[in-house]
Structure formats: C-alpha cells, structure tokens
C-alpha cells in the first residue's frame, strides 16, 4: 500500500490536525489552498528548483566517509552533506520554499521561531534576498548560548526578539511567533522551521525538505547501484529526518532510525526525547508525542543541542513511530559530544551538535552491519555555531 499522509484535514493517523485559536483557522485554510495550487504549478516549481540549485547550492553531496567506515568496522558510512548548503544546514531548503509561498501570497513580512538559530539565519537570509521584513523569535536562553547566530541574523537585517516567558527556549519562541502571527495576520507569513505546528505546516515543510531524500535515492543508485540499507537522522522537531525519510517510506527494505536528544539520560527528567519517553498530547497546533506532566503542563527539556531542545516532535514522526516504520532511539549529551569529536578528527568535518546525535547512534549500528551494507547519515548542519558551547563545556576559554 502506498503511504499517503496526511489526510485532507492534516491528520497522520491520530496525530497532526489544527489545534489553534479561531483567528488562525482561516489564514491556515488560505495557506493550504495556496500551497495546494502552487505545488502543481510548473512556474513555481521551476523557480523553487532554480533557487535550490543556484542559491542553496543543491544537490548536496553524498560523501563516502572512508576513515569513519574503517574506524567503526562495519557498514559503509555515507554522509548526506546538508552542512554544505548555503547558511550551513538543511533549514534553508524549507525557508526558500516558504518564502516563495509568502511572495506568491503577497505578504511583506515574515516571522520565524528559532532554537539553535539555524532556522532564524535561514529565514533572515531569504528575507534579505527577497526584500521582506523579518522578525525572529528566539528564547532568551538560546540567544545567550547561540550568540554567533544572533549576530548573523542581525547582519542580515532581521530583528531578533529574545523571548523571556516560560522556559525561555524554542517552545516559548514558537508561542511568541504564533502570538505575532495572530496579531499581524494580514501582512505576515509565519515561516515555521520544522515539521510541527498546525496543518498544513507539517506537510509543506516535509515536502520542501524531501529534496534531501530524493537526492539520496538518485545518489545511492549512482554511487553503489542500489538504495541504502539504513538511514539515520537526528530528531528535534524532525524536519531533517522527515526530509531524508519521506521518499523512502514505501521502500520497505530500507531501515530508518530517528535519534532524539537523550540529554542526561531518558531515565532522568533532563532530556528532550518525547518519542522515547513522552506520550501523546496537543502542543503548538497539533497532536503528537510531547513531554508533559500529569496535569498536561509542558515540561522543561534539556539537551546540549539547542536545536533539539523541544518538548514536542512533528506529528508525522509520531505516526511513523506507532506504525513501526521508523525506529526512534535517544543518545545522551556525552555520546553526542564524543561523536562530534570523532567526526571532526576522522573526517575533517565539524558537525552541528544536532547532527552529532545521529552519528552517536550510527556508530552503535555500524559494526553489526557487514561491510557490504550501506548506511546513510544525515549531516544536517555544520558545527561552527557550536564551538563556543563545546569550549565552555570543556573548560576552554576562547
């Protein structure tokens, strides 16, 4: 049976949907209708493909990590180099697409939420290119731990608003962006950075990110004559993972593993792994696995990586978990950090701490797979933004 989700109302099985205040229901309907028309419009698709090629620099390479393969002593390790995209992460695939939507809808102002700052930078970048006003909401705590990205956004002409409510992280930034959108809905387009939020966002962000998986299908056939045996990607909200996984869902022979942020351990309260240790609930406009207490209050999360520090996850991941098509696991801060150093030294590639989570799990999988197996890891972003965090954690002053 062919995988065909979401349904027309944005449901992935029991997940997804539209759980927002009435004021946003009509704007969401209009967005879904506009997207539905544009996704089939050859001119729009040509413009999008052109931007992805000439502005983002796609296709991103599928790189054979020979030294890592030898070190891990098992499967052939391939890296999907989303770190080589313009702005240094997969996030730009989506902002290019949504900004084109905003332009076609006649909006003059875009807003975005950001955790690590990668989506904020990608939004500010495309806003600069299209001459749109851009406001980025960022948790006050993230503003401190990701200061280089804050400065990049300001250089690009965006206004960065530190969000001081709640836990002062990504979830609170998303609340504040929703409040802005409800207030300025006439001229503003909300560029959501991950496959969460109300329908149609989980679907349209997935569609824009699926270029990752489509390229991997073609590149795998080109480089080793068949599809990979396994795919591994980190999951915060889950946009890089869904982008890699989605084109493979009907290829049942390809195993897929999503890696959540286990923080100080999923048996402690200090993690950000709702699929591994949470339960279904409603947050930010959709039903999905979340981290909440017995009263339904959203719990504070912890991860060394700001981009994974989120108590929810895209609803499609919840569905892929329940259906068993994707396996979800978690790795700790320490494991991610070790993988960060290993990749940096073994291949000369500094990965984002988010992506390092995928490597930390892949290194556990690789030995059990023979050398005739091919394992693709999504290197979702580069780690320049994280060097200050890592130096601080390791007691080094820069």
């Amino acid at each position, binding site marked *: 049976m062919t995988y065909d989700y979401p349904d027309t*109302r944005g449901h992935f099985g029991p997940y997804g*949907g*539209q*759980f*927002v*205040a*009435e*004021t*946003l*229901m*009509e*704007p969401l309907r209009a967005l879904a209708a506009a997207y539905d028309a544009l996704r089939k419009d050859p001119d729009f698709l040509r413009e999008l493909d052109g931007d992805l090629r000439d502005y983002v620099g796609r296709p991103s390479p599928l790189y054979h990590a020979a030294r890592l393969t030898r070190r891990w002593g098992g499967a052939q390790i391939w890296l999907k180099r989303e770190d080589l995209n313009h702005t240094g992460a997969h996030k730009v695939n989506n902002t290019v697409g949504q900004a084109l939507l905003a332009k076609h809808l006649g909006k003059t102002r875009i807003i975005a939420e950001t955790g690590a700052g990668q989506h904020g930078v990608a939004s500010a970048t495309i806003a600069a290119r299209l001459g749109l006003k851009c406001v980025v909401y960022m948790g006050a705590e993230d503003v401190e731990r990701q200061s280089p990205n804050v400065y990049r956004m300001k250089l690009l002409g965006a206004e960065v608003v530190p969000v001081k*409510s*709640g836990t002062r992280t990504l*979830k*609170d930034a*998303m*609340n504040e962006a*929703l*409040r802005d959108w*409800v*207030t*300025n*809905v*006439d001229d503003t387009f909300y560029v959501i950075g991950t496959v969460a939020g109300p329908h149609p966002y989980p679907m349209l962000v997935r569609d824009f990110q699926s270029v990752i998986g489509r390229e991997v299908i073609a590149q795998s056939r080109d480089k080793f004559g068949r599809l990979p045996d396994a795919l591994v990607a980190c999951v915060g909200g889950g946009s890089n993972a869904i982008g890699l996984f989605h084109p493979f869902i009907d290829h049942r022979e390809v195993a897929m593993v999503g890696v959540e942020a286990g923080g100080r351990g999923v048996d402690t309260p200090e993690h950000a792994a709702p699929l591994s240790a949470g339960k279904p*609930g*409603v*947050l*930010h*406009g959709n*039903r999905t696995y*979340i981290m*909440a207490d*017995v*009263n*339904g*209050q*959203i719990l504070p999360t912890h991860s060394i990586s700001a981009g994974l520090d989120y108590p929810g996850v895209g609803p499609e991941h919840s569905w892929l978990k329940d259906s068993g098509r994707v396996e979800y696991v978690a790795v700790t801060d320490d494991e991610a950090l070790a993988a960060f150093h290993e990749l940096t030294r073994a291949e000369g590639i500094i990965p984002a701490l988010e992506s390092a989570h995928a490597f930390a799990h892949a290194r556990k999988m690789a030995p059990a797979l023979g050398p005739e197996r091919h394992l693709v890891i999504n290197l979702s972003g580069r780690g320049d933004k994280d060097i200050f965090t890592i130096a601080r954690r390791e007691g080094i002053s820069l």
Partner: protein
Amino acid sequence: MNRLDKTFAALKSAGRKALIPYITAGDPHPDHTVALMHALVRGGADVIELGVPFSDPMADGPVIQLACERALAHGTGLWDILDMVAAFRRDDATTPVVLMGYLNPIETRGIEAFAERAREAGVDGVLIVDLAIEEAPDYLPALRKRGIDCIFLLAPTSPESRVRAVAHLASGYLYYVSLKGVTGAANLDIASVTAKLDEIRRHSELPVAVGFGIRDAASAQAVGRIADGVVVGSALVSEVERLQQQPEALPEVLQGRLQTLRQALDADGG
C-alpha cells in the same frame, strides 16, 4: 434549561447585558480563587470565566501569561480547579462557571473523565481556545451528554461560511474575539465589531459575548451597546498581578473594578 441558558434568558427579559469577568484559577494562589469568584459575583458578574492555567498559552498576552506562571508555580492542576468550582458551588448555586483554557490539560486527563468530574463540580461550560470546530467532534459528545456547553470563538478573520458552521455546533453563547491579536491587546474597533456581530446574528440565535481589548468602563459600555455580553480579563488580572503580595486586598479591589463596569453597562439603557 441549564444555568447559562437561564442567565442569558433572564438578562434578555430584563434588557440587560451580561458582565463576564475572567480570572486565572490559582492566581495569585489557589487558596484565594474561590473567594475571588464570590467577589466577582458581588461586583455584578453574570457568568464567571475561570482560566485553567497552561504552560504554553499561545493565544494570551503577557498579563495572562504571567497569571498562568503564578498559578503553575503553586502547582494548580485541572482537578484542583474542579475542586475550587465545587467549593464555589456550595455557596452559589446560580452563577454559571465556564472553564477557559487550552486542550492539553483536558486531553491529558481524558475528555470523559474530565467531563464527568466537571459536571459533578458544577461547571456549566468549557471554552477551549485551541479547539476549533474541525477537531471538536472528538470532544463535544462527552460534554453535551452531561449538559456542559462548549463555547466556541469567532474572530474577525472568520468568513461567513465558518460563522455558519460554528453557529451550527455552538451552545451556551458565542464568544466573539474583537480583534486580531492576543488577550489584553488594545486596538478595539467598535465599527468593525458591530458589522461582524450583525453577520453572526444572521446565523445564530445564541447570545454573543465580546472579549479581548475591553479594559475600562468606556470600552465595556461601547461593546455593551452592540453585544449581549462583555468579557473582561486582562484588566482584572492586572490587578491580581499588582496586588499579588497583598491577596487579602484583592476581593474588594476586584469587586470594585467590576462594579464600575457593571454601572457603565447598566447606565446605558439598562
């Protein structure tokens, strides 16, 4: 006829407008909520909207965000709030109480368990901000079979087709969000509210209350001229914030604030 229907029917025959204050349960402390509810009734409340605090109140402005944080700092949970309503009911059998909040606290307890406890406590209506009509069919039957009204929002962005669909599902009253924005915003435009209320009334016989952006006697009076009810939230919660260290002063202050609004509403043709 439930308490909400009776209240609106009595107001209509008296030619009066409903005054509907909102406070957040557990703010500034759970021990004070029941006393504050009684104070609101003494001040002239016809219906009480009792906020269920949520960690991520995405439709609320800073005043109610902080109220949620104060209430949650004391661990105010959904079952605690139903206990408060039950305690209020021991001394007030007539004033309707509508719980207002977000879906996840209810979803976490389960709609059936929640609806049953809410009925036992004496809740009359539930307004779930992030539950629009599209997702409501999963939740409505549990409430309806216990005589609890599900209060729906309408907004300036709701096209006439949605107004019709919402009117079809609604009971109790309709809550018209007077502006594009969050609670406590200040850009109320009476002319556009008037036009939208005319449209709503073409599709529904239900009373229409108007909220968001009503902060004082003048704005309450202006809205009272065109709506069946006036919701006042952030203006009252600001007083709770101001006096959070002297909660013993709060009942009298809130009662006084409400009396001012009541007089403004009643003075206008009464």
